[in-house]
């Protein structure tokens, strides 16, 4: 790939016979990564410093008398690196044998099993049988507080957790106690990790099962989990996450790398705020005046009622609604000649920033799509708890549309005087009892859609679990109604719904689902980008 335009800022070298051109200063490990070669490693993590202490990434560099740690050695022009040579393989086999001297090999009861780097590497390159005859050291378990449980025996002393707390969380609660064969990770005696809002990340970066989540302890095996890319709905930061599900239940949330939003990290509030997704008391079929009906009949009669309705139209939603839902609700309101749409969102005081990755913070708005509602021109009402502010809607006599918000704070007379009360929601709250039409919607985990985060970044998410009964995504319901109303084509996919929504919204410009991909795309003219 050497060309005349080659800038001096790059070097060309060979890794296992493949020519690689990378910027000067790249490490061998990253250079190999850039051509899809993984060099086994523990202590190296792209978000942390490299102490080169695990000795697993040792590779052979031609002409060098000793093997070099790939995570720390920078590439040089014409360098020839061997990762699979006899010498490099012998290095890894030897180092892995040392790791297994004290490792308990309790994989059958270890939560990390199936996604454990020690397991993978030993399976790939370790010795078939251990030669150690000495008893293994036994350290037992230590509750580090928060959500973290430490299994000292499984630890490989990569110190990723210590460095995360020092360099990224900047809250140095962990240390290596003692040294040599007595070394062990610990906190300052009984101090623990309690109160550290980002400590959950050390469970993610632990390459083995030494640090495990107490919440996830023995809940599921890694290979039984389905993984779906998604966006954290717990605040307006919109951390990229993976929904890890089994049997249509969310088992845990894990951060997904996105250098524009959350790096490799997420906060513990978001991480543990998933049980509501698994709520089972859902509306499963459309209810018309309390009677179960099929979708065609329900929507058909609703359409007739909407066309006949005389009163003013008012609508309320919440900041958990997707861009598509909100946009189609807005279009619907415009078509019906309704007044402005109001929304509510809980809010806290103060952001919790991750010092080592300042883009990421737990934001003040504790819902994922406040920015989307703002872009669409919705009016925010209610207080910090997302309660109140709906007095004129509660006694509204015309048409009332509720999207998403179960309105748990309202009394049972909410909407009782409405001429036509349409409720699109996932839960049958007491307010929904007054609705003429209850149309079951899916949660974000069950549908495709997009949120706009605090930076004005539009991010997609995918359905991770099946929706109960015949619940449908909000955009599908609103899209179908709108299409019937205006005698146009209904969107049959969230991507089409977004295109339809984006048409009239300059901020969404010409963004499509394809542009967003798995990492989102910035909205245009997104003034006041926070965290930049």
């Amino acid at each position, binding site marked *: 790939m050497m060309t005349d335009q080659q800038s001096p800022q790059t070097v060309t070298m060979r890794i296992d016979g493949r020519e690689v051109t990378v910027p000067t200063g790249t490490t061998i490990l990253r250079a190999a990564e850039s051509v899809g070669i993984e060099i086994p490693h523990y202590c190296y993590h792209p978000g942390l410093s490299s102490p080169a202490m695990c000795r697993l990434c040792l590779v052979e560099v031609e002409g060098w008398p000793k093997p070099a740690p790939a995570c720390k050695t920078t590439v040089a022009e014409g360098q020839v690196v061997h990762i699979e040579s006899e010498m490099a393989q012998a290095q890894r086999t030897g180092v892995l044998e040392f790791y297994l001297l004290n490792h308990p090999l309790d994989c059958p009861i270890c939560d990390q099993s199936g996604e454990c780097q020690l397991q993978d590497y030993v399976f790939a390159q370790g010795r078939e049988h251990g030669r150690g005859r000495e008893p293994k050291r036994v350290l037992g378990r230590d509750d580090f507080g928060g959500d973290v449980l430490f299994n000292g025996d499984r630890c490989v002393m990569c110190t990723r957790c210590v460095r995360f707390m020092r360099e990224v969380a900047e809250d140095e*609660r962990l240390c*290596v*106690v003692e*040294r040599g064969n007595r070394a062990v990770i*610990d*906190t*300052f005696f009984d101090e623990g990790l309690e109160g550290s809002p980002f400590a959950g990340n050390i469970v993610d970066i632990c390459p083995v099962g030494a640090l495990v989540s107490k919440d996830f302890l023995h809940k599921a095996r890694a290979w039984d989990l389905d993984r779906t890319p998604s966006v954290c709905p717990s605040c307006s930061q919109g951390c990229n996450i993976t929904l890890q599900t089994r049997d249509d239940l969310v088992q845990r949330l894990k951060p997904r790398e996105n250098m524009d939003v959350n790096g490799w990290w997420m906060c513990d509030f978001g991480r543990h705020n998933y049980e509501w997704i698994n709520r089972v008391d859902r509306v499963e079929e459309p209810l018309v005046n309390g009677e179960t009906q099929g979708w065609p009949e329900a929507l058909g009669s609703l359409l007739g009622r909407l066309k006949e309705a005389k009163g003013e139209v008012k609508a309320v939603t919440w900041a958990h609604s997707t861009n598509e839902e909100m946009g189609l609700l807005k279009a619907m309101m415009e078509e019906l000649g309704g007044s402005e749409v109001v929304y509510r969102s809980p809010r806290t005081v103060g952001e919790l920033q991750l010092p080592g990755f300042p883009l990421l913070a737990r934001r003040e708005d504790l819902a994922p799509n406040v920015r989307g509602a703002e872009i669409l021109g919705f009016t925010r009402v209610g207080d910090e708890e997302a309660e109140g502010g709906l007095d004129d809607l509660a006694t509204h006599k015309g048409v009332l549309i509720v999207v998403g918000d179960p309105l748990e704070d309202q009394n049972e007379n909410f909407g009782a005087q409405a001429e036509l009360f349409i409720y699109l929601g996932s839960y049958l709250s007491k307010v929904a009892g007054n609705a003429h039409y209850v149309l079951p919607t899916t949660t974000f985990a069950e549908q495709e859609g997009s949120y706009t985060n605090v930076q004005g970044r539009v991010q997609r998410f995918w359905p991770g679990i099946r929706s109960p009964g015949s619940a449908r995504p909000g955009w599908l319901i609103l899209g179908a109604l709108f299409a019937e109303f205006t005698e146009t084509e209904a969107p049959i996919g969230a991507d089409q719904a977004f295109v339809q929504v984006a048409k009239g919204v300059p901020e969404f410009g010409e963004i499509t689902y394809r542009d967003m991909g798995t990492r989102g795309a910035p909205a245009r003219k997104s003034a006041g980008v926070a965290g930049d």
Partner: protein
Amino acid sequence: MSEARRIPFNNPGWAGNTGEFQLTEAQVRGDEYVGKRPPEGGHPSGTSTYPYMLAEKDPEAPLFEGAYQERFEKIRSRYPDARSALLPSLGMAQELRGHLSPETMEQVAQLLGLSPAYVRGVATFYTMYNKRPVGRFLIQVCTNISCSLCGGDDVLQAFLNNTGTEMGETSEDGNFTVMEAECLAGCGFPTTVQINSRYYENVMPKDVPEILERLKAQGE
């Protein structure tokens, strides 16, 4: 804090050129050249090595006051990074208090603006910091090669027997803690024993009761 009696510095560390290898025990031990060692122990040549161990320890001693405060500030001013001042500061804390308790580590962390966990990591890495209380006299017997060849293990056993303690434990009267040490750099005069900050060289099991008696008398 009582000032231990000053011993004039007298370098005993010159064995001379023996010229051949057929040596008597006395020759190996260097008796002929340096005579009898001072019964109070010698001044270790590396006397500036921290921690400097005093017989009188006060686990409640303030961190730091008076001359110690001055020393602390001097140490602190020596380094741009507070972490660099940690080792000598811990050394001073141990000198005053005898050992580094969790409270001591936390106080030192506070003084230097470091996290307690970091201080614990450093304090536990180095074996010369005592993480548990020790007796007034910390007896460290070398059992590394030279001393071992000259009966270091017997000396260690003699100290254990005569103080009636287990390794690393403190005797009932609070006077003695006996530990095994790796090389004390007194290989010319084995067996070397470090008691607090003094070096006892050429120690043999028969010398042990006398040393202990002397220390006990010193303590009263």
